[in-house]
């Protein structure tokens, strides 16, 4: 599918499987969960079409459900893709550098990426409780449940990035034998 191949253990100081077998299982489960969300979206949209064609005015909020589920799909799917290294990136120039410089670049890029997702979590601490006070027009759903996808997904995205960061830092100071 899209993106760079899974991280290679021999290159760029990044392991193939962050957090070992448990991590692999967890992120596979997250991928399946995201798949279930996508299935639910498909069913919601399809049911809407069917209802319209059998003359039903439509169920309240059925158009809202797939839109809100999409936010969860993106955050969970992006986390599962992050674990597998599937987010498209330009590795061509980074790979030209020496192993140590590559490790340094990784420290900078993973560090900045983690800062971004920490910001998303930090701002969500204000945003989610506020959104919880509002309800959606159709379903009457407190919007906090939608906004909560951002911090939850951000934590799941940060974990593999933090693992990569730790590996890169270790690669910066190779142990003397």
């Amino acid at each position, binding site marked *: 599918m*899209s993106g760079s191949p899974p991280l290679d253990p021999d290159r760029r100081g990044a392991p193939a499987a962050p957090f070992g077998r448990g991590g692999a299982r967890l992120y596979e489960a997250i991928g399946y969960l995201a798949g279930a969300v996508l*299935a639910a979206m498909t069913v919601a*949209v*399809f049911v809407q*079409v069917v209802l319209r064609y059998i003359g039903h005015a439509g169920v309240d909020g059925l158009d809202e459900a797939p839109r809100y589920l999409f936010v969860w799909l993106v955050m969970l799917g992006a986390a599962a893709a992050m674990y597998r290294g599937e987010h498209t990136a330009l590795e061509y120039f980074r790979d030209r550098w020496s192993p140590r410089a590559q490790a340094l670049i990784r420290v900078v890029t993973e560090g900045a990426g983690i800062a971004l997702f920490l*910001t998303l979590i930090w701002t969500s601490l204000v945003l989610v409780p506020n959104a919880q006070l509002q309800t959606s027009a159709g379903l009457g759903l407190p919007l906090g449940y939608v906004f909560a996808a951002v911090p939850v997904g951000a934590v799941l995205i940060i974990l593999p990035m933090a693992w990569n960061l730790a590996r890169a830092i270790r690669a910066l100071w190779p142990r003397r034998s």
Partner: protein
Amino acid sequence: MAETLLIVFVIFILLGTPIGIALGIGTLAAALVFPVLNPIIIPTRFVGLLSDSFLILAAPLFILAGNVAARGGVARAIIDLATVLVGRFRGGLAYVNILDSMIFGGISGSAVADVSALGTFLIPQMVRKGYDKDFATAITVSTAVMAPIVPPSIVAVVYAWMADESVAAIFAGGYLPGLLIGIGMAVPTFVIARRRNYPREPAPTLPVLLVALRNALPAIMIPVIIMGGILLGWFTPTEAAAVAVVYALLVPPLFYKEFRWREMPGILADSARLSGVIGLIIGLVGAFGWVLTYSKFPFRVAEFIGTFAPTWWLFLIFVIVLYVGLGTFLTPSEIILVTVPVLLPGAVAIGIHPIHFGMVCVIASALGHVTPPVGLCLFVGMAISGLPMDKLLRPLLPFIGAIIVVLLLVAFVPETVLLVPRLLGFVK
């Protein structure tokens, strides 16, 4: 503000950060320098962009529809049909390769799905019949660019959503360019097939032709339902995508018996991860768009275009060069998401029709699918054939050349895009 964001964005892209995250880091950097940009805008716009529009849901649903169709025996039925239609000419399987990509592009909307679904059958089959492996791989990889051009197309949905244009119009605008690219690819195929004396497939008898047609009907109905439904106004594009998923799950498996339900969780998870990759960028484009609007950057770009490239065709040449360059390391959806908000106001200001502009953007960025260093289709083709990249570069050249010629034709003759949507009444 926009400059700070873009400079940091480009630096992080060059350092190997995924594009969506680089965009977010750029926004964060701009927020550090300019306090007026509160970082809370990032998650607010993120959720807003993803949940406000019913239309953008078409992207994950078309990804799913393509992945389901790719594993359900649809690919084989289409290859069989194309074989009886064009296999009898010299180098017949190469024409089959072109035609089935056009038809399959009408189902999947994703070039990568096209290469993996069709390439796994066609490349070994061509090699067995005496075609050179590098030629077979190169033509399979390059014909896949038709998938995002022939409707339905995930990239076109993303463009229509960004540009606030009708999806039906841009979908309809893809038919003629898709056909032209198919014809363009047939030219080098004709020359190479004669020079290397590639084989022909036996000419079909009428009963064989009818059987192939009947077998392909459940597959061919997928594009008919999607596009018929959208063009006739029965479904919105998002609904059409959901209907296509349900149809591809229920009908073709009855006929082809290749689909296994236990594969379904894997197909859903694959589609969900790809949706996550694209969706993360869509969401993070939100705050980027806010910065662009706030700093009036697109208007400055439009002014710059007015002096630097005062005529529409000069501007399109600039866009094509930019997109083909970006396309060598970004996917078409990513390029469109990042550049359309910056460039579209300028394009419209010098009189380029947004549908025409969109199709030029789609073709130019799709070209990047086949060019190194990170052409995604190229990687899939390499994986299927086992050939290294350097072995494929020369055989790819004539096909890349054909795409470029058609791209220039489409850029300079707007009617190649606008004729069909105009006839259908989507464009005045």
